[in-house]
């Protein structure tokens, strides 16, 4: 099943069970979503439950909060994370804080889905990653979705939670294919070990995880070592337990992400590892990120701005050699 189909199935199955679940977003009903995620749901559930909104993100999120206050369970699709900036007051000041400020009298069972990241030549205003900002806000659960299986299970569980969830997708993953384990009782808060290894812990998420995975064979061959690759899955809270066990085993840590290096999400993971696991580290950690530049339209400039399988391979091999591998 494709990533976008897995999300669609999760929406469909939960909507068929609970009439309080409504979807809202730009072009999600008639068009079926820019990435075709909500295709077919309008016909099945009608326009009162699959709502085409105006192009007004502040209101899309603000209205969803009000719907949740009113007893519904809204699932929002923001066309891309780039537009979430227009809704940041609603996300940060309302969605994340109303439950706390009301001492729990208000609960917001809602999910905010948004694809992000560098796609193909969409230009500076359509290529950003905002998981660093979103994960810094107390009161939100932030999940980063790499695979169809995780998408399906984590979304179903997110919709059933009574706390607000940010569900980050990546624009280039919608056609990723994977069998879904329907019987799995997947815990969305748990990091996923993609491949076990002994010498280096590599942590990533979203598309960079796949780019890293595709370079892994050559890295291992070149450095004559084995890498443990971890999909972080939940960016807030972080499954530190899984990370800790891995780092204690390997003694080496690499963090790979697409966002700009300044203020990057992974800086937090590296900082935690240095603070908590300093004496278990055999080498200075490596953090591979996007460069501190807006993303250019030109394809070569665009690719020079973010880690690619090629640059990941080169950077890890260099780092490995310096650090005695």
């Amino acid at each position, binding site marked *: 099943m494709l990533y976008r189909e897995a999300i669609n199935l999760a929406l469909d199955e939960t909507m068929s069970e609970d009439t309080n679940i*409504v979807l809202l977003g730009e072009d999600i009903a008639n068009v079926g979503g820019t990435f075709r995620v909500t295709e077919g749901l309008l016909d099945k559930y009608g326009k*009162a439950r699959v709502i085409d*909104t*105006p192009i*007004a993100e*502040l*209101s899309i*999120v*603000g*209205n*969803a*909060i*009000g*719907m*949740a*206050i*009113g*007893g*519904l369970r*809204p699932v929002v699709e923001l066309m891309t994370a780039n537009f979430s900036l227009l809704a940041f*007051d*609603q996300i940060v*000041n*309302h969605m994340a804080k*109303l*439950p*706390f*400020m*009301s*001492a*729990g*009298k*208000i*609960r917001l069972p809602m999910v905010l889905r948004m694809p992000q990241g560098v796609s193909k030549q969409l230009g500076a205003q359509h290529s950003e990653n905002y998981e660093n900002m979103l994960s810094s806000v*107390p*009161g939100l*659960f932030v999940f980063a979705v790499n695979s169809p299986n995780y998408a399906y299970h984590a979304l179903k569980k997110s919709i059933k*939670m*009574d*706390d607000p969830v940010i569900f980050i997708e990546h624009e280039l993953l919608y056609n990723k294919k994977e069998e879904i384990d329907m019987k799995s009782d997947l815990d969305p*808060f748990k990091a996923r070990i993609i491949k076990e290894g002994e010498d280096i812990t590599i942590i990533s998420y979203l598309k960079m995880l796949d780019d890293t995975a595709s370079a892994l064979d050559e890295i291992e061959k070149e450095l004559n070592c084995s890498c443990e690759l971890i999909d972080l899955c939940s960016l807030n*809270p972080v499954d530190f337990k899984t990370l800790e066990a891995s780092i204690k085993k390997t003694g080496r840590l690499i963090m790979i992400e697409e966002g700009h290096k300044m203020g990057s999400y992974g800086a937090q993971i590296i900082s935690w590892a240095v603070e908590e696991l300093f004496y278990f580290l055999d080498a200075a950690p490596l953090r591979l990120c996007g460069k501190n530049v807006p993303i250019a339209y030109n394809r070569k400039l665009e690719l020079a701005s973010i880690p690619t399988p090629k640059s990941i391979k080169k950077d890890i091999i260099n780092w490995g050699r310096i650090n005695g591998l």
Partner: protein
Amino acid sequence: MDTALMEDLYYSMLLGRHFEYAAKENYFQGNISGFLHLDIGQEALSVGAMKAFEGDVFTTYREHVMALSRGMSANAIMAELFGKVDGVSKGRGGSMHMFSPKIGFYGGDAIVGGHIPNAVGCAYARKYQNKKTGCLVVFGDGATNCGGFFESINIATSQKLPLVFLCENNKYAIGTKIETVSAFSKQAKKVEAYMPTVEVDGMDVLAVYKAIKKAGEYIKEGKGPIFVEAMTCRFEGHSISDANKYRSSEEMKKCKELDPLLKLKPLLDKVFVEKIEAQVIRDITEAVNFAHESPEPSLAELNKYIFTDEGLKHAL
């Protein structure tokens, strides 16, 4: 209008007035800190609207009197101002964040205009649920210049939502005269193309009560939202730290001549008025004592309420 209702409106306005006096006094005594936006002078609007409307209410940071007249206890509100554990938000919210879903009161929002889209969403929920009532959202003239306001009047109209927009036009956006920053002095102008608009004397509690009752009836008809603009005037600065220097003593004199309490008082029985004044003083004294005696929140519960108990298991 029947006597019992008029007496109730007067009692609520007087309770609100004395509550705010006590809040001000306790602020200067150091028992209350942070922001404090007093509603003195605007009680007719707050009380009239809250007593008249059946349904869910979303308000601003100037909401003590609205919370009181909606049915929240003076004790719980005062304790919240003191930051105590018996406060309506257990000391987590403060002056600007009072909530009581039980009575359909959803804040208490401290971002100007930020709660309007929330009210729109809640009105959508009420329509979806086929509820007989809708929502009321209260905001100042300043909020009508925010983008979210314009998005909201568009969505509420296009979706035909049961929502009363109540604009509290006190002619100042914090300290800036409305004409300086708004294209119109009457904010209804911005809305006329979307929905019916009504102007009401916001210093006359009976007029506000009637206007909101009627607006509440209108939104039940399924024709969409309605906009009520209440012309009002606050006796104090925007907040406790605002010295109110931007209004002349002449302007303030005129404003205070419109005192909504003095307007209603002559219509009431003198014995009732005396009795009720004594009652209000007792209620407020009790609220202040209650707030003093209530304990501080436990530091061990710092993380509580961010998430549900189930969510908290994962968050820590």
